[in-house]
C-alpha cells in the first residue's frame, strides 16, 4: 500500500528526514516510535503534502501512485487520512458543511441530506458524542478528547484506506483513549485499512495492536521489529538505540 524509499525532506531548509525507508502493506498496522523532535510528525506533513515541507530526494508510492508531486487534496483523495496531534479549530465552518463539501468534491456527486444526516447521527452515537456536534464549528470550543472524537467522526464519514494517527493519545484521559481506540479498532475490522501510529510511548499499544514497530532516529528508521520492540523501548528508553 505505502512505500517510502530513501526519503530526504526538510522544513525551512532544515533537513529533518534523512534516507527514510518504510513499507506498509495492505491492512497492516505499523508504529513509528522515537523521542520528541526526531521527525515523527514531519512524516505526517510530508505524506499529506504540506507545502511547508520539501522533498529533496526519494519517492513515496501509494497504491502504485507516486505522490511526490501531488497536492494535499489529491493525496487525501487517494485515501490517506491524518488524525492530527492537536486538531485545529475552524471558526465559522461546521462539521456538516465541511463533510458535505468534501464528499461532494471527492465523489463528484451531490450528497443526499437524509442518508448523510442518518450516517452522521449513528457515528455520533458510536463515538459517544452528542449529535449537536454535526452542526458545530469544527473543533471550536471542544476539549482535547472531543476534538479527537470529532476527527474520528470525519474519518468514519470519509472512509480512508490509510490512516495516520499522530500522537493519538495526547490530550486524552484513559476513558477517552479507550473510546477513541475502540472506534479505530472497529473501523479496522470493518474496512481493513493500513494504519501508521506515531507515538513516543506505548500506552496506545495497549488498545491498538500493531504488526510492526519501528524506531526513528536522526530522520531514518534505525530498528524494526514486532511488539516486543515497543516493550524493549518501554524498559530501556530511546537512549539504548
Amino acid at each position, binding site marked *: 500500500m505505502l512505500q517510502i524509499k530513501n526519503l530526504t525532506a526538510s522544513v525551512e531548509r532544515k533537513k529533518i528526514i534523512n534516507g527514510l525507508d518504510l513499507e506498509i502493506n495492505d491492512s497492516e498496522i505499523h508504529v513509528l516510535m522515537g523521542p520528541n523532535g526526531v521527525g515523527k510528525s514531519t512524516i505526517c506533513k510530508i505524506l*499529506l503534502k*504540506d*507545502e*511547508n515541507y520539501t522533498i529533496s530526494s526519494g519517492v513515496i508510492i501509494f497504491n502504485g501512485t507516486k505522490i511526490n508531486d501531488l*497536492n*494535499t*487534496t489529491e*493525496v*487525501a*483523495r487517494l485515501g490517506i*487520512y*491524518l488524525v*492530527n496531534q492537536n*486538531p*485545529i479549530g*475552524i*471558526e*465559522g*465552518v461546521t462539521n456538516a*458543511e*465541511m*463533510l458535505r*463539501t*468534501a*464528499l461532494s*468534491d*471527492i465523489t463528484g456527486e451531490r450528497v443526499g441530506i437524509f442518508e448523510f444526516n442518518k450516517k452522521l447521527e449513528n457515528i455520533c452515537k458510536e463515538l459517544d458524542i452528542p449529535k449537536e456536534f454535526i452542526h458545530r*464549528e469544527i473543533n471550536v470550543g471542544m476539549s482535547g478528547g472531543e476534538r479527537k472524537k470529532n476527527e474520528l467522526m*470525519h474519518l468514519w464519514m*470519509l472512509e480512508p484506506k490509510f490512516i495516520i494517527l499522530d500522537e493519538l493519545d495526547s490530550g486524552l484521559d484513559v476513558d477517552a483513549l479507550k473510546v477513541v481506540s475502540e472506534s479505530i479498532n472497529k473501523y479496522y475490522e470493518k474496512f481493513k485499512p493500513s494504519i501508521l501510529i506515531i507515538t513516543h510511548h506505548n500506552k496506545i499499544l495497549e488498545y491498538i495492536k500493531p504488526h510492526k514497530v519501528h524506531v526513528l532516529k536522526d530522520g531514518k528508521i534505525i530498528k524494526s521489529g514486532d511488539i516486543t520492540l515497543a516493550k524493549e523501548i518501554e524498559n530501556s528508553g530511546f537512549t539504548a538505540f
Partner: protein
Amino acid sequence: MNNIVIDREEFCLEDFDGEVKINVKKLILIIKGHVVIKEWIKNNELDLMINMEENSSLEYNRFGLENSDNKIIINQNSNSRVIFKESLLVDNDSKLKIKNNILGNNNISEIIVRAVSKEDSRLVVDAILDVLENTFGNEVKEDLRGLEQENSKITIIPDMLVASSEVMANHNVTIGSISKEDLFYLCSKGLTFDNAKKLLEVGFLTSIYEDIEMQEKIKEIIK
C-alpha cells in the same frame, strides 16, 4: 430625511427579495423597545442614522455584497444597548463608516465588522466611538477584522474618542489573509483548494451571527 419608528420585535430590510426595499439614500431609524434588524444589502449607498430611545435595545445584523458606500450613525442616550454586526464581501471599491455617539449613561455598545475584499478592490472601514464628557457607566467595544484576498486591500481605522473617565472601552483590529494552516486542514479532508477557501471565507463572514437564518441566507446569497 425619511424617518421610520421601529417598535416591533423583528424587522427586515433587504434589497434582494425583501420585506422592505430601501429606495432612499438617507434614513433615520428611531428604536423603541427591543428590536432585531436583519439587513441584506447589495451595491448600496446609504446614510443611516439610528436613534436609540431610553431603555431600548437593538441587535442589528447586516450583510453587504459587492460594492457599497454606507455611513451609519448610532446615537445612544441612556440605558440602551446596541450590538451592531456587519459582514461585507466586496469586489469593488467600498466604504463603510460607522459612528457611535454615546451621549448619556449606562449604555452598552458593541460594533463588530467582518470584511472580505476580493480582486483589486479597496475597502475602507472607519469606525468611530465617541463617548461624551461627564457620562458614566458605559461599555463600548469595537471588534473589526478584515480578510484580504487576491490583490485587494483593506484599511480599518478604529477611532475611540473617549472624553469620560468612567467608561470601559476596548477595540480589537486585525487584517490578514486566509490561514494556510486552515487551508491545509480542509484540503487534507479532500476538499479542493477553491472550495476550502470559499468555506473559510463564508465561515469568516457568518461566524459573528448567532441567528441561523441570517447565516443560511448569507451562504445562499454568496453561492
